[in-house]
């Protein structure tokens, strides 16, 4: 069974994000980038399926500028077999990514697409669902557990207030939640070997997709800074402030 794992290059989770002065986006110049953590979980899960002899091939796909190949290389070092790089400098929004993935699915015929539930940069949480819609495939989103048997996949989903377990026919789309697994560190020998694995390059034009954005970003702002607290002298003053200023009762 072939597994396709879409991965996104995002600002490293440990970097303190700064908004550009003109509020058009976040500062990306000289900022450390890494694989989206949810996608890392997806790669790990695919490798575990491979190690359990359920998956036979893992294809990692990323979209964007040349630097995406670094992110693909990380997936290859972890254990993916080969990569696909969709080269474009256009800002990619979830619908465009879903369309591009649909075109890749048509070529590659995977039985399973595992991807992060969302990217930590724009937090859209849309691509997996859109891809399922475009393909007409079943989807199991926010997965915290997977089990494959007899052409079906059981997905345990993390939902508000509990877990939901769904049974899907293959082929299917699964999006990963944080608790699905703990991704491995690529071993140093595998990093060296990853250099020799294949990354195929393609473009939106070759895939017959117009990736132009449909949405316009009006502005990006930093969260409001927390104001310092105040000390109150008496319980009465506290009750008074809670009632009249904070209006909690």
């Amino acid at each position, binding site marked *: 069974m072939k597994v396709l794992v879409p991965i996104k290059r995002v600002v490293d989770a440990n970097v303190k994000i700064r908004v550009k002065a003109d509020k058009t986006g976040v500062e990306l110049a000289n900022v450390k980038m890494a694989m989206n953590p949810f996608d890392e979980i997806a790669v790990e899960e695919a490798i575990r399926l491979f190690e359990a002899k359920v998956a036979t091939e893992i294809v990692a796909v990323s979209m964007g500028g040349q630097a995406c190949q*670094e992110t693909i*290389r*990380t997936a290859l*070092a972890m254990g993916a077999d080969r990569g696909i790089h969709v080269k474009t400098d256009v800002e990619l929004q979830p619908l465009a990514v879903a369309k591009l993935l649909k075109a890749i699915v048509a070529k590659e015929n995977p039985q399973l697409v595992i991807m992060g539930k969302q990217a930590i940069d724009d937090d859209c949480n849309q691509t997996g669902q859109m891809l399922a819609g475009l393909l007409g495939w079943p989807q199991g989103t926010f997965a915290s557990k997977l089990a494959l048997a007899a052409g079906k996949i059981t997905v345990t989903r993390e939902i508000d207030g509990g877990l939901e377990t769904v049974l899907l026919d293959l082929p299917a789309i699964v999006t990963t939640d944080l608790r699905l697994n703990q991704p491995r*560190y*690529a*071993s*140093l*020998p*595998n*990093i*060296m070997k*990853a*250099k020799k694995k294949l990354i195929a390059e393609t473009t939106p034009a070759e895939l017959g997709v117009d990736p132009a954005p449909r949405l316009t970003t009006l502005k990006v702002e930093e969260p409001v800074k927390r104001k310092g607290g105040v000390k109150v002298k008496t319980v009465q003053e506290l009750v008074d402030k809670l009632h009249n200023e904070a209006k909690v009762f």
Partner: protein
Amino acid sequence: MDLETRAHLKETVRRFVRERLVPLERKVEEDDAVPAEVRAELKRLGLFGLTIPAEYGGLGVDMATDVEIAFELGWTSPAFRSVMGTNIGIGSQGIVIDGTPEQKKKWLPKLASGEIVGSFALTEPDIGSDAASVKTRAVKRGDRYVVNGTKRFITNAPYANVFTLMARTDPSDPGAGGVSAFIVAADSKGIRLGKADAKMGQRGTKTCDVFFEDVEVPAENIIGGREGQGFKTAMKVLDRGRIHISGICVGTAERLIHESVGYAVNRKQFGKPIADFQLIQAMLADSRTEASAARALVLETAGRYDRGERTTMDAACCKYFASEMVGRVADRAVQIHGGAGYMAETAVEHFYRDVRLFRIYEGTSQIQQLVIAREMRRAFEG
């Protein structure tokens, strides 16, 4: 090695060190041991084979990559590096540099995978800096040697499966020429370990005495297959090791600076962060400058090593400057932390004790000075 792969290796080690090892530092201090699961993870990561050639199952990284990884490993407690430190350095390099093809084939793949731990036995109760005066004797009897003697402060001896042993094969030559290097299986009959040494710092690393009593070693286990080459082998091993250790010193200095800046910015006295005070700023600036200078020296020397230049003097300069530098940086780090820096809750407290060893092992600062001066004279006099 191409820059992208080097960066990828470095980044992976960096993440592993900061996410996995740093949170365990306190535990290592308290238990005086590295957790068994971390040993297994370090093995899986492939770090044991860092400097062993690819044809024998290692990574065979060049010196420039070696020191970049050392910068990252130095960020955390030295006990973690010590787990594979001897396989990377003194416990394997004798075989890598001077071993026969058969010796390499037999030992290196297992050292690279971490299946076995290698250890280096040179120092003796009476022999430290005067390394050429090795007293341990190896007497040839037929197709074997019989070894008798005591080795001291032997890093990783309690875990070792194989020793690179320096022993005197020619008693008529009391100097370097009479010493040979042997590969000795740790389970050989007649090898006994002393109790683990109680040390000032570097808790979690294990050293002890190793006693050799009528230990029989096959003659084919002489490194390189020839007698009298042992001291030369040991010096080549130490040459490369010195550059690596210097990289570790730089990494530890970076960590101490990181801790110092963090503390100075957050700690308030006289109504403002102590980082506002110029006397604190002076200490931070001195540490930063010295660490940057050491880093530049180490990178420059690693590059020259990779180009095949003679780097005996430069390696000694690196070891001398970087180990003394990190001593000063650690001292300032404790000073910036004030009373807190003397308490075991802060990382700088153990690093202050840990870094003291860097000025002593694998050649004291004074030996490095002698090497530097000797090489200067040699270059001048031709």
